[in-house]
Structure formats: structure tokens, C-alpha cells
């Protein structure tokens, strides 16, 4: 009987122009969002590869010059490739990049705010300037038109449009009594109707929502595409199921079609807009980010003398290159060490607080399926806070190694050799294993499917009550 309803309903759905319009419109929006997100990811890749090419060329030139000098060529003091102070601080700067993930087109996340390419030198790392420029400000403020937005905000509304009257319309048209005169249970009838709608929508969502970003983002070469795509598909199915189950529940207890639509939109508003908004307020209140404004002055205050010394070194225009005098280089290293030791605890406080915020979000996400879906999409697309923090930690390691390497040679008063160039620390990116991703997304998925299951059980009870009241 389930399949009979499924088939009949399918026929009437196929003839419904409004359904086609909604599905087609939604598919177009999904494709547009994927293209828009993909364009951003591609631009990012281009910027990264420019930086990395520049780095390779720069190092090749330095090594060439070094060989030339070793063979008795002329030495230019300001760009001496043997000078550890100059190379560590400027000429031998390293580029660390966090490439967009395979599904980067799905969610921009914090990628448009946090730097994905960081230049490492021996200088103190007081906070990486980077992505926060004026050119994309309008988009950052409003939020990007990416798939995460389309799927989290708009997909539930499409579900509601397709199913707010899945039962009430039959009652209002008076066809329900006819149907129930057949040997079919009310629950089976409604579930079959809903399952059909869900199946049709999922075909569109999975086809357009997975293929489009993979093609547009151009990141298929990544090693763990499989885990990402699997997690993403799971999220899409789970999130869609949640909203269909909610629609069934509202129909089971609901009244008129208009009443159902209003209730569903109300719940949508609550779960997608209000609860996430309040959650972020709670997170900000419990773990407020330290103040950047205060950081500026604290750093300035703590390292005032140090900075004054540094500016003394720089402001003295006519003087010879700083490293002509080894003592000057040593003093600069010392001054910087002071500055860093005082500022580092403050910077660490920022990272720790952000990690605490994210941990709290990870727990509170179960308050709303929208948060679960949004966080999950950030994770599968590799634009979540966690991946950025791991990147930042890896950059810190490189920074420490880079400093160790050059400072040791400055202290010894040594010159860099060709062999040193081979040993210079490079950036090594470590991606978390796919199992970590699957665990995070999987636990989130439970946060979608458990409530969905509960709603089905409640709906079945609601149907029984509806029948006992004689469908009124």
C-alpha cells in the first residue's frame, strides 16, 4: 500500500507545475551558490600558487647568488645571501598556506576572515594580518551566498513549501475520508506521501549539491575527498530528513494548511535564526574574546623599551645596513626576544579562548539542527575554526624552527652556506586524519537523526489521536 500511495502521489506531483518551479528554482540557486563558492576557492588557490612560485624563485635566486659569491663574485650588503640576519628576517621568508579543501565551494566559513597564507620570518608574530581587507567587506558583512547558506537557511523552507499541507490539504479538500476508506493506515499514507517528496528533493539536493561544488571548487585531487563527500552527503540527508519529519509532526497535530505553514515557519525561525543567534551570544558571554585593543597597548607597554630600541635602529636613515655590525644584529635578536616573551602569553590567551568558544559551540550545536548542519558543512569544506587553528599551530612551529635556525647562526656569527640552504626549515602541513572528521560529522548527524526519529514516533501517536477524534 505504501508503494501504491508513493506511485499515485508521484504522478500528481509530476503534474504539479508549482513543484517543478520550486525544485528547478532551488537547483539553480544551489548551482549558483556552488559556482560562487568555487570562484572564491579558485581565486584563493591562484593567490597561494603565486606566493609559492615567488618563494621558489626567490630561494633559487638566493642560492645562485650565494654560489656566485663563493666563486668570488661581488657582495651586495643589503641583500647578502650569507647574512643570517637579513635572510631570516626578509630575504628567506617562508610561505605557509592552507589550501582550500576538496569541498571548499560548500562553505566559506571563516576563510574570508582568517588568513590562509602566512609569511614567516624571524620577526615576532603578533597576529597575522591577512584576509580582512576592504574589497570583500560587503560580502563578509552580509554573509557569502555559499552552499552552507543555501542549504541551512533555504533548504528547510523548500521542505516546508513541499510538505506543510501534506495531510491538511487532504482534509481541507475532503479527500482524506475517501483515502481512509481504503485498507491503509493514516500513518502509512502520510509517510508515503512525505517519503516521495523527500526522495524527489534529495535527488535534486544530492545531485546539484555535491556535483556542483566538486566541479566548481576544482579540488578533486585531495587525498581524503571520500571522507569529506561522505560526511557531507550524510549531513544533507540528515538535515532534509529532520525538516520533513517536523512537517509530518506539525501535520499530525496541526489544524489548517495556513496554520501549519505558520507553525513551521515559526519553528524554522526559532531553530535557524533565533537559537543560533542566542547560542552565539551565550558563547561570547561565557568565553569573551580578549580585547585586541587592549592587546595593542599591552604589547606596546610591555615592550616599550624594546620597541624604542628597534625604532632607533630603523629610524637612523643614513646608517650602514644593520647587519654590517654583528652586535646590532644580536641586539635586534635580543630586543625581539624580549618583545615576544611578553606578548606571547597574550596571543596564547586569544587562541585558548577561541578554542574554548569552539568547544562550547561543539556541545551547544545540538540545540539546533541548523547549527549542526552549519558546523558540519564548515568541517567537510575545511573552512572551520578547528582546521584554521591547527594551521596556525603548525605555522607557529615553523616560526619557532625558523627563528632557532637563524638566531643560532647570528649568535655564532656564522655565515650561511649552500648546505645551510638545504637544511632551512620548510612548512609542513598536517591535515587531521579523515576519521576525526567523520567522528565530528557523525556525532552531529546523530543530533539530526535522533530528533527526527522522535518526531516520527510522536507523529504516529498524533495520527492515532486524529483518527480517534474523527479527523476533526
Amino acid at each position, binding site marked *: 500500500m505504501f508503494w501504491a500511495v508513493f506511485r499515485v502521489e508521484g504522478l500528481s506531483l509530476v503534474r504539479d507545475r508549482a513543484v517543478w518551479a520550486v525544485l528547478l528554482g532551488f537547483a539553480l540557486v544551489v548551482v549558483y551558490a556552488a559556482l560562487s563558492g568555487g570562484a572564491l576557492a579558485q581565486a584563493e588557490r591562484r593567490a597561494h600558487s603565486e606566493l609559492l612560485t615567488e618563494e621558489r624563485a626567490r630561494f633559487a635566486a638566493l642560492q645562485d647568488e650565494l654560489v656566485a659569491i663563493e666563486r668570488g663574485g661581488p657582495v651586495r650588503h643589503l641583500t647578502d645571501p650569507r647574512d643570517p640576519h637579513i635572510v631570516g628576517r626578509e630575504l628567506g621568508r617562508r610561505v605557509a598556506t592552507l589550501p582550500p579543501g576538496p569541498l571548499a565551494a560548500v562553505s566559506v566559513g571563516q576563510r574570508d576572515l582568517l588568513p590562509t597564507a602566512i609569511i614567516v620570518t624571524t620577526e615576532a608574530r603578533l597576529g597575522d594580518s591577512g584576509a580582512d581587507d576592504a574589497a570583500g567587506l560587503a560580502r563578509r558583512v552580509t*554573509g557569502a551566498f555559499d552552499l552552507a547558506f543555501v542549504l541551512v537557511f533555504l533548504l528547510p523552507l523548500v521542505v516546508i513549501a513541499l510538505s506543510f499541507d501534506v495531510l491538511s490539504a487532504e482534509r481541507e479538500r475532503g479527500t482524506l475520508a475517501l483515502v481512509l476508506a481504503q485498507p491503509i493506515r493514516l500513518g502509512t499514507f502520510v509517510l508515503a506521501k512525505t517519503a516521495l517528496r523527500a526522495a524527489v528533493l534529495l535527488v535534486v539536493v544530492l545531485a546539484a549539491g555535491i556535483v556542483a561544488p566538486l566541479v566548481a571548487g576544482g579540488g578533486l585531487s585531495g587525498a581524503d575527498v571520500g571522507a569529506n563527500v561522505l560526511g557531507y552527503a550524510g549531513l544533507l540527508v540528515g538535515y532534509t530528513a529532520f525538516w520533513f519529519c517536523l512537517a509530518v509532526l506539525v501535520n499530525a497535530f496541526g489544524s489548517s494548511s495556513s496554520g501549519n505553514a505558520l507553525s513551521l515557519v515559526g519553528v524554522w525561525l526559532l531553530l535557524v535564526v*533565533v537559537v543560533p543567534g542566542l547560542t552565539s551570544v551565550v*558563547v561570547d558571554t561565557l568565553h569573551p574574546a580578549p580585547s585586541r*585593543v587592549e592587546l595593542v*597597548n599591552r604589547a*606596546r607597554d610591555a615592550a616599550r623599551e624594546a620597541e624604542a630600541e628597534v625604532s632607533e635602529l630603523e629610524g637612523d636613515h643614513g646608517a650602514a645596513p644593520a647587519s654590517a655590525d654583528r652586535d646590532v644584529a644580536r641586539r635586534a635578536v635580543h630586543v625581539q626576544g624580549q618583545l615576544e616573551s611578553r606578548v606571547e602569553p597574550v596571543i596564547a590567551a586569544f587562541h585558548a579562548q577561541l578554542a574554548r568558544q569552539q568547544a562550547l559551540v561543539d556541545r551547544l550545536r545540538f540545540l539546533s539542527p541548523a*547549527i549542526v548542519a552549519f558546523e558540519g558543512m564548515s568541517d567537510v569544506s575545511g573552512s572551520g575554526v578547528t582546521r584554521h587553528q591547527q594551521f596556525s599551530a603548525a605555522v607557529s612551529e615553523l616560526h619557532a624552527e625558523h627563528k632557532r635556525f637563524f638566531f643560532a647562526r647570528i649568535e655564532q656569527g656564522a655565515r650561511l652556506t649552500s648546505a645551510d640552504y638545504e637544511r632551512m626549515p620548510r612548512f609542513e602541513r598536517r591535515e587531521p586524519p579523515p576519521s576525526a572528521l567523520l567522528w565530528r560529522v557523525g556525532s552531529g548527524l546523530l543530533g539530526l537523526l535522533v530528533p527526527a526519529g522522535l518526531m516520527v514516533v510522536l507523529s504516529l501517536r498524533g495520527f492515532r489521536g486524529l483518527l480517534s477524534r474523527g479527523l476533526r
Partner: protein
Amino acid sequence: MADRTSQRSVHRALILKELREISRDGRFRVAGAVVLALLLATLAFGAREQQSVKAERAAAQATADDHFRAQDEKNPHVAAHYGTYVFKPSGVLAFVNPGVDAFVGVSLKLEAHKRNPLEGAKARDGTALSRFSRLSVAQVIELLVPLLLIGIGFGVWTSERERGTLRQLASLGVAPRALLLGKLLGLLGAMALLLVPAGLLGTAIVALLVDLGGPGTLPRGLALVAGYAVYILAWVLLTLLVSAHASSSRAALVTLLGLWVVGGLVVPRLAADAAVAAARAPTSARVAANVRESLTRGLPGGPDREARVSELTEKLLERHGFLGAETLMDASLLSGLELQAEAAFENEVIDHHFAVLARALDRQDRFLQLFGALSPVVAVRSLSMALAGTDGAHHRHFSDSAERHRRELVELLNTEFAERGGALGFDYKAGRELWAKAPVLRYEQPTLGWVLGRQWPSVALLVGWLVLAGAGALRAVRRMRVV
């Protein structure tokens, strides 16, 4: 005369009936209470946030000024390298609409030779969730209030028709205009129940907690209230229009919700996306690279650095009457004038490249405003951010005045070096009496006229929405089926 009195009593009866019906509607009570609570909560939260931001930045500015004044004796130009920090003060009305504030930097290092970017955007220190859904007073008014309006108003005509009461009214000979006025004032009354308390609280917050700021606050505040009034009135009329036009309550609801989703969620993001993509602006990194490049090679099409700096030095020497007599000058005077010439060249380069950026961003802004034709939300949002002083243009306005301030400071230090240094050159050192003379940045927001000069497309489009919705509602009511 009697006719007019009876008309007036009909009006009164209609309005009272609407208000009574709405206030008895359980849905309105619950949803209205939720929206009112959110409105008050966002007001209180925004005001608290703003107060702490204001106190923090004022304290930070005082500390930074102290740091500069408490410097040891040093060469004035070395002091210009040491530099100072300025912190962006927040506008008085930012608590209504935080706008771009979380996404732009707040502190700026002023030093010789460089126009630094503003650093420390707050959004970078939060999770992605805080961007996913940010509730503010503006968000509640722009999105939730219209949704509430739709919830109570979608059946305003259709349900009367479905119940058969519309026919009765028509048979009494009540003019459609009077009916429309009754419904309109009824819905507006319901909105007033929510918005007047919130508005009073907002005014109280401005008056009590936040000091009134400059003379510009009052006109901006009034314009903001007027803008939102026009916006809400437009939504009321739009709701009446759709309800009168629709064949059933269900159809009216679905249409209105569709309009809300497209107008409130889809179009704003699409507009921002399209504006950023269509009116490309150079990134900050690009601008910085261009400035660096021009600083070594000279501006595109112009003389190179050395030629231009010596040209400027000659002008300065001529002004001081030393042209051709450089050998007779004190070392400091020559160095000081050369530094001034160098700074003048740097300023030319910076001005050139930032003007390119500003033009691109203005284009982007105008392009974005045009999308107000597709959705009143875009128009009111752009206007509201501008009036609250939290749009990109205000940010640039601050950044520009900070740059002017930087130049004043550097000019002061270099002039001092040139005029007082004597034969000592870079060995000359100045003390605290010079640091105390450093100018203090007193930032004033631009006037209302400046805001409206940039926002006229949004204002025009918003009024356009109002007029169209009004005319459409009247037409639809005149042609409405009563059975």
C-alpha cells in the same frame, strides 16, 4: 457634515475592530511577545556592548597618547618611526546597527613613511557561528517584524471573505478606501504596540547611557526612525496588497512568505555577492604592493622616486630661500627638508593608490544600493548602516582622517627636526615638550547631508516601495472580490 461624522465613526469602528481582533489573536500575542523580547534584549545587549567598547577605546587612546608623550629624548624623526596608535571611536548609534564594525580593524599604528591598515577585526576572534546568525536591533526590525506582520496580516482580507463578513461590509456601503484605512491603521497600531516601547527604550539608552555625541546624533537618529517607519509601512501595505489580491488565505500566506524569503534572505546576499564580483576592488594586499612598487619606481607614468623627491626638495629649498646654497645649510635643515620632501612623495603615492581603491569601493556601494529595487530590505539596510555610522564609507572616512592626522604628526616632527636641529643632524634629540605638542585626533562623524548624499538611491528606492505598495493596495482593494 453628518456624513463626515458618520464616516469618522465608521473609521473608528473599523480600526478598533482590527486592533481588537489582532490583540485577541493568540498567535500575535505569543509571536509579538517574542519579537518584543528580542527587540528589547538586542537593544540592551547592543547598548552594553557599545558602552564597554567606548570605554575600552577611550582608555586605550589615553594610554597610547601617554606612551607617545612619555618618550625619552630622541631625534624627532626617530619619534616619527616610533609612532603612535589611534583607536577608532564607535558611533553613538552603532548599537542599533553594528554594521561592518565587527569586520573591520579598530586600531591603527601611525608612523613615518607608511599608511598602515586598521588591525584587530573582532569577528576574527570568534567562531563562525557568531557570523552565521547575528541578532541586532536592526536585524529584528528588518527581518522579524515584517515576518510577524505577515503572520498577523496575511488573512486580513481573505479571511473576511472566507467568513463572509466582507460581503456584509460591502453591502453596508463602506468605501474601499475607508476599509483599507481601517485595516492599515489596525496593523500599524499592532506594530506600534511593539515598536513604540522599543523606540522609547532606544531613546532612553541614547539619552542616559551613551552621551549624545556630536550635534549630528539627533538628525541621524530621527532619520533612522523615519527610514524604519517608511520600511514598516511599506511592508504593511505590501501585506494588504497581497492579501487583497490572493484567492485564498493559504495563497496569500505562501506568496508573502515567498516574498519575505527572497527579499530578506536571498536578495541581500546575492546583492553583496554580485556587487563584490562585479565592481572589483583591489585587495588590501594588492594596494600595499602597489604602494610599495610606486614608492621605489614612482607613480605609473610619472617621474621615478629620485627625480620626484629631488623636485620636491628643490621646491622646499626655494620656499626656504636656500636653493643653490645647500652647502651653507645646517645638516639638520637639509635632512629635515629632505625628509619632508620624501614624506610629500610618499603621500602622493599613497593618495593615488588609495583613491583608486576608494573609487572602486564607491562603485561597489552604488551597485549594491541598486539592488534595493529588488528588495526593500537591501535599501533599508544600506540606509540604516549609513545613518548608524557603521557602513564601509564611514569606516573609510575614519581611516582617511586618521591618515590626515598621521601626516600632521609626521610633518610636525620633521619640521621640528629641520628648524631646531642645527648642525647636529641625526644626532639632534628633542624632548617631552615636543611630544606634548603632538596633535590629538578628534574624530567627528560626517553630517547627515553627507550620508544622504551617498544614500539617495536607497532613500529613493525605499520611498518608491512605499508608493508602489500603497498604490497597489488601493487598486487591489477597489477591485477585490467580496465573495
